[in-house]
């Protein structure tokens, strides 16, 4: 059977990690390529790079980073942030990423999902979703609304309807981020994750809120997620990937234990 995937997320700006990542040895690593190599050796199942480079003109720096990462690690990785066109996707994929992730650009132009899937296959297109809990209404029946601009702008789109629409358009996977849970380290938004993961027939990566190993366990069991995105829990040396996987393995969750 498939293993549940553990996916560290790395934020990159102008070719550098935005947070100096500290390990148990207290070494700060700012280089995304070294960091990717570290997580590859540690047993990460996949990596996500999120490019928060503000200037569109400096995106070639990210492409160079992707190329260097692809020469060093041999597991899938995706790149998101600032991808607005099929040509943007092509550059990232040719540089060696397995997948591209699109978020607000897909909301502005849903056709981008279909165009990307036609050009590169659904497996290469990840829909990033930033979601906020709201009161259920006629417009937002699920009680979860799509937001953009880091949660500042409400779009009027129902998250459940959008997930289904994106699947229909050809998205191959969903990376589901709860803005409410993000950064709290109090656990994933389990209800939201379960709602989306059981309503679509494409894999769902849960994101936002992981602060303890139990949270990752819960998002696989209660949340029915296919993969868990993690950041601070391993970035700051609270746990290693191996500790997380050993815990899950002991609890009977299938994870990849040999690498």
């Amino acid at each position, binding site marked *: 059977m*498939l293993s549940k*995937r553990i996916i560290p997320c790395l934020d990159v700006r102008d070719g550098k990690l935005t947070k100096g990542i500290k390990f148990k040895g207290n070494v700060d690593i700012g280089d995304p390529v070294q960091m990717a190599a570290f997580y590859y050796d540690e047993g990460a199942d996949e990596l996500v790079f999120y490019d928060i480079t503000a200037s569109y003109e400096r995106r070639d720096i990210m492409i160079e980073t992707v190329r260097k990462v692809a*020469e060093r690690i041999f*597991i899938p990785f995706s790149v998101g942030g600032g991808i607005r066109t099929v040509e943007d996707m092509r550059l990232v994929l040719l540089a060696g990423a397995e997948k591209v992730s699109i978020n607000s650009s897909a909301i502005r132009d849903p056709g981008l999902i279909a165009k990307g899937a036609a050009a590169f296959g659904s*497996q290469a297109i990840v829909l990033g979703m930033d979601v906020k809990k709201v009161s259920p209404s006629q417009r937002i029946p699920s009680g979860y609304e799509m937001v953009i601009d880091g949660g500042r702008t409400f779009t009027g789109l129902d998250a459940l309807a959008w997930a289904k629409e994106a699947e229909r358009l050809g998205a191959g996977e969903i990376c589901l981020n709860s803005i409410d849970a993000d950064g709290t380290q109090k656990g994933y938004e389990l209800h939201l994750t379960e709602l989306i993961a059981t309503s679509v027939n494409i894999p769902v990566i849960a994101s936002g809120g992981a602060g303890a190993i139990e949270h990752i366990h819960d998002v696989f069991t209660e949340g*029915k997620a296919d993969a868990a995105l993690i950041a601070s829990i391993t970035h700051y040396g609270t746990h290693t990937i191996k500790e997380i996987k050993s815990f899950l393995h002991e609890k009977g969750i299938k994870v990849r234990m040999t690498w």
Partner: protein
Amino acid sequence: MIAIIDYKAGNLTSVQRALAFLGRDSAITSSAAEVLEAERIIFPGVGAAGTAMFDLMRLKLDTALVDAYGRGKPILGICLGTQIVMDRSEENQTRCLGLIKGEVLRFPENLSEPGGRKLKVPHMGWNRVKVMRKHPVFDGIDPQSEFYFVHSYFPGPRDTRNLLGETLYGIPFASVLTSSNLVAVQFHPEKSGRPGLRLLSNFCMWDGKDHA
């Protein structure tokens, strides 16, 4: 030289990068002549069987592959490449190369895991491969190793002698096939971490003989 066959079917640079990491030179080529000159051949692919066969025939790579196989050159099929070596595929009702007898089938819609939960198609992510017998290409690979898969179709070899590895996803399916100098894997060794690199490295040293 290792020829990586290019028939416009996917991201071939990832295979080349993995070989470069192993210190192996390779050439991405769509020339039938170059394929026939190569010492060994990697036949990758992502996409649909119908388009892939159309492109292979247009470039005369179909006959080149069959010839290379007949001459005993080591050939490694990857993902769609593995499906294309079969007789035919359910995907677009495509007639394929026929190096291994049998048909390529789609995962059924109603797959479920032992607990009853519905399984998603495509089969995407890390899964184990039960290797049925010793083979040089799997030399030194831990049986607990997992490999990275992305596919909705799988090969169904008619003769169990062609079945080298099996994977479980709701149903058991053939994830590794072999026939003399051909080994074909449904997963992506170039994206499967160290076990995948070991498989590629083994392939690079394989003389194409199956000692079974």
